[in-house]
């Protein structure tokens, strides 16, 4: 018996158990209070938060796909100094930058324009934090296509940029864009800090599920728990569905 092999497997098992418990504990915590949670589900404020969360996350996902295509094209094909730095700014920095700071930046930038505390503010705040997932998937795949050289062959056959994009890059990137969309959607669903600072939490206008969970956790814990169950269940179902769709394609 290889002791090192066993040790690695044990360490991996501990991590797996920890991650699973982190996800599933919420359902256990609800325990006998399912009745309270179900009644909270009937509250209009919860419905509003579900609607704002889902609709804004879908819109952010679509905008991320639309933005990822030109950005990935430029990052793949354009030659200019500082391309790596630009990619860091577009892809990595938004994922590590404190979202609360970005919310404040947007408040200072767009507050005077009347965009703060609107549905548009929810989209703007979520987009910055979530879109990099789709952009990074698109950049990776576009780069793979470029490295395979089939774009050069397509050009030798007379294809122009519009053909390369519509007949080569997009069909070969569709799966990756879908995967990027699903991660962007899930990240947008969970985004709290930037949205709360820039868009606030106005029921049926800007209040999302994470905002509702945060604000209700002291006053109405059963509402917070109900919203958490919905948010977590939606994330799991959607991510698994996207994975299944992507596998089938």
């Amino acid at each position, binding site marked *: 018996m290889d002791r090192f092999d066993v040790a690695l497997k044990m360490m991996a098992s501990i991590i797996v158990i920890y991650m699973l418990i982190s996800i599933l504990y919420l359902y256990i915590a609800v325990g006998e209070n399912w009745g309270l949670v179900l009644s909270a589900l009937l509250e209009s404020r919860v419905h509003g938060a579900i609607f704002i969360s889902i609709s804004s996350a879908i819109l952010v996902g679509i905008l991320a796909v639309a933005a990822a295509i030109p950005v990935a094209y430029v990052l793949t094909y354009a030659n200019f100094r500082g391309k790596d730095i630009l990619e860091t700014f577009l892809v990595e920095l938004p994922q590590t930058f404190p979202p609360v700071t970005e919310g404040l930046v947007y408040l200072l930038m767009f507050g005077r324009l009347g965009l703060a505390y609107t549905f548009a503010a929810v989209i703007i705040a979520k987009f910055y934090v979530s879109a990099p997932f789709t952009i990074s998937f698109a950049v990776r795949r576009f780069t793979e296509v470029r490295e395979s050289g*089939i774009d050069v062959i397509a050009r030798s*056959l*007379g294809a122009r940029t519009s053909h390369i994009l519509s007949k080569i890059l997009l069909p070969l990137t569709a799966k990756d864009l879908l995967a990027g969309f699903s991660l962007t959607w899930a990240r947008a669903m969970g985004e709290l800090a930037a949205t709360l600072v820039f868009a606030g939490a106005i029921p049926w206008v800007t209040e999302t599920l994470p905002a509702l969970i945060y604000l209700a956790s002291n006053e109405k814990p059963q509402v917070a728990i109900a919203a958490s169950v919905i948010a977590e269940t939606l994330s799991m179902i959607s991510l698994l569905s996207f994975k299944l769709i992507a596998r089938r394609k």
Partner: protein
Amino acid sequence: MRGLYVQNVSKSFNGVKALDGVELSVEQGEFMVIMGPSGCGKTTLLLVILGALKPDKGLIWIGDREISRLPIEERNIGYVPQDFGLFPHLNVYENIAFGLRVKGYSKSEVDSKVKSLLRMVDLEGFELRKPRELSGGQRQRVALARALAINPSLLLLDEPLSNIDEATKSDVIANLKNLQRKTGITTVCVTHNPEDAFKLGDRIAIMYLGKIIQCGKPKEILENPKNEVIKRLIAPILI
């Protein structure tokens, strides 16, 4: 009549010369093989002719048309890379039809041209297969048909026999030669393998350290190799 003229072309990468004043003239309808060891600049030369790489110096002519500044899509050159470069998401028919469609041919023109090319490369019945469902030889024939579909002025082949197994190599060579004769298209093929070069080429240009060091008919090179480097490169043929 001249089919291709490469005039004093040079290309460096990070200060290292990949092509050093290359001069090459290919007659219309001729099958020219550029042979040389790995890293001698063969593929770089092919990519410069194709337009995928910009030369630092020199000009490229196809017939009496100077094409050095034209983008790839306007050069009308058929190109078959080493791995055949088939579009993985398209079937055989769509791969061959690609160039015709982007050039705006009508549906019936595309159909008749693709069918005649499928006949020519002996792949009728394979229209709906995806590249991954084909053998190496079949993939090469699809790539050739796709390159020929646009009626190119020049055909470039990069190591066309490197992905073909030994058992079918002689058939593939015969097919390639036959296809080139039938279409009469000026062809430039690069290979590192002297045996393949001598079987394929009407003429052979031997390339070494970014330069063409001898060019002639296979018999001329065999009988009169210019120097020791060439003798060494063609040694496998002499054994």
